[in-house]
């Protein structure tokens, strides 16, 4: 007997869940650093263009593909792709990108998310307040990651405890399903996240110029560092690629998470307005809230000379080393520190839960196992898979997973999705499907953009990558020699995983009788 398919409890529920998937650590850490490094206010021009030509069209595509596949009882790439191109026996294997990509990101994202939880705890308990200077914070972070003493495995007991706690929380939410777990979490976490974010943004802006010796180190000039346009930066292809990359990263498109979520939307319910609403929620969190905290705060306390170096030092350094120092300098900094790190944790958990969903849904849909059983299987397997990013962080394993998961597979996945929907399924059918039950009439220009502009853009990015980076990445040219065995090991593990998914897809379709459409009973 086929298990009954879940649905979202309300339209707001699915909007908040998709927005939660999109609003992640990158909104508050990655965006401001990218903007500061790539032309300030002028970065917004390619950013908005990429949002219009790539980001929003891909949101509509993924919501449409997901809801269509959900109508046949499929939430994930293999089943959704097969639904879109029924005559092709091999297309389901390409859909593996929409399960494999999010799993890869999950393998390291949980660990970073656990840092946020632990730092929010350390803020509340006053441990961060007792650290005197920059070097102290650097030492604290390296000790937390287990990098302070040379060893084969890098971990600390505190790091492991918070990792397990974060891992268990994610699975606890997943266990209670779409409505009882994910939707309920997002109903609480998203408003709380925005509340903390807005309080922090207002606090930073109302700091004005706390150091009388440097009246120009003020919050307005801090915002200016991010927003003053440097138009010469627009001549650089790197800036345009950085903006497109940020849009991809921030909207969670191409990874299969939105597809999985939208598959639980009923056939006649709106997706056009919901997709735009969740995308605009994400942009509010990123550009307005995210852009008003980290860079302006760092500018106010470290000044224009050091801010460039801080931005160059990377998002994690700013978030986990620079920000705690700033909280130590302001009244009730422990509370603001807690808010900052807990906000990051909330942003993280609403994203990581969406990364877990495709694998769990794949087991549910294609092997007809219960939600609870699927979560237990996922828990056992993913715990082991997450460990390399924890214990081999000093060997570049986390960075390698980040490249394959958050860069390579999402671009490949997005390209496959849009080509399949706009060209194979057909743009006219896709347009009609998107507008079924729609509460928003999408401007017709997007029909042209979805069919021609977005796929061209994606193919250009993939082509550029193959042309410039492919060989050096495969041959690990830029990997330090002592890390090569570890990177090779993780890549072999990923290859094995990929083959396992190929086998599982083959098994899922093979065990059905010829001609039987998987999940057909669930067709609405």
């Amino acid at each position, binding site marked *: 007997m086929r298990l009954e398919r879940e649905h979202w409890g309300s339209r*707001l529920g699915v909007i908040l869940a998709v927005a939660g998937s999109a609003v992640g650590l990158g909104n508050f850490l990655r965006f401001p650093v990218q903007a500061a490094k790539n032309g300030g206010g002028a970065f*917004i021009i390619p950013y908005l263009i990429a949002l219009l030509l790539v980001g929003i069209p891909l949101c509509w595509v993924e919501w449409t593909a997901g809801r269509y596949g959900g109508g046949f009882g499929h939430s994930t790439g293999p089943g959704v792709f097969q639904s879109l191109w029924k005559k092709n026996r091999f297309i389901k294997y390409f859909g593996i990108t929409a399960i494999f990509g999010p799993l890869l990101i999950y393998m390291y994202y949980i660990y970073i998310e656990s840092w946020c939880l632990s730092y929010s705890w350390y803020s509340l308990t006053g441990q961060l307040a007792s650290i005197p200077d920059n070097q102290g914070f650097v030492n604290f972070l390296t000790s937390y990651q287990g990098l302070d003493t040379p060893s084969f495995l890098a971990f600390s007991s505190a790091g492991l405890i918070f990792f397990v706690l974060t891992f268990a929380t994610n699975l606890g939410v997943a266990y209670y399903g779409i409505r009882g777990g994910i939707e309920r979490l997002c109903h609480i976490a998203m408003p709380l996240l925005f509340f903390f974010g807005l309080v922090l943004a207002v606090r930073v802006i109302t700091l004005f110029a706390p150091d009388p010796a440097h009246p120009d180190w003020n919050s307005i000039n801090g915002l*200016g560092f991010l*927003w*003053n346009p440097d138009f010469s930066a627009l001549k650089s292809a790197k800036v345009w690629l950085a903006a497109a990359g940020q849009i991809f990263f921030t909207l969670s498109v191409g990874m299969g998470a939105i597809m999985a979520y939208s598959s639980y939307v009923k056939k006649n319910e709106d997706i056009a307005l919901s997709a735009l609403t969740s995308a*605009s929620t994400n942009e*509010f969190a990123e550009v307005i809230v995210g852009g008003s905290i980290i860079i302006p705060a760092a500018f106010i306390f470290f000044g224009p000379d050091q801010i460039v170096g801080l931005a160059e030092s990377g998002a994690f350094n700013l978030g986990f080393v620079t920000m705690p120092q700033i909280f130590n300098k302001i009244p009730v900094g422990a509370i603001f520190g807690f808010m900052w790190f807990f906000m990051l944790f909330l942003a993280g958990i609403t994203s990581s839960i969406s990364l877990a969903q495709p694998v769990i849904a794949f087991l549910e849909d294609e092997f007809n196992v219960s939600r609870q059983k699927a979560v237990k299987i996922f828990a056992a397997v993913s715990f082991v898979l997450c460990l390399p990013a924890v214990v081999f962080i000093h060997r570049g394993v986390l960075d390698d997973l980040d490249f394959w998961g958050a860069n390579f597979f999402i671009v490949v996945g997005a390209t496959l999705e849009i080509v399949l929907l706009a060209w194979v399924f057909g743009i006219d059918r896709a347009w009609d499907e998107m507008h079924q039950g729609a509460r928003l009439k999408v401007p017709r220009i997007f029909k042209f953009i979805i069919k021609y502009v977005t796929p061209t853009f994606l193919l250009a990015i993939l082509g550029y990558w193959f042309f410039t980076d492919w060989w050096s990445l495969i041959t690990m040219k830029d990997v330090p020699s002592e890390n090569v065995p570890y990177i090779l090991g993780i890549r072999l593990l990923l290859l094995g995983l990929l083959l396992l998914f190929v086998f599982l897809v083959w098994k899922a379709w093979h065990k059905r009788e010829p001609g039987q459409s998987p999940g057909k009973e669930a067709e609405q």
Partner: protein
Amino acid sequence: MTPGGWIFLISTWGLIILVAVYCFSRVFQNEAKEKTGGDN
């Protein structure tokens, strides 16, 4: 902050807030209509 910076900040923030408010008002409006049975 330069005048250019202000222009970029205000126009970008304004655009994002406008779209978000429009979308959410439409979502809530539709939900209210559906609850009272006034839509279909």
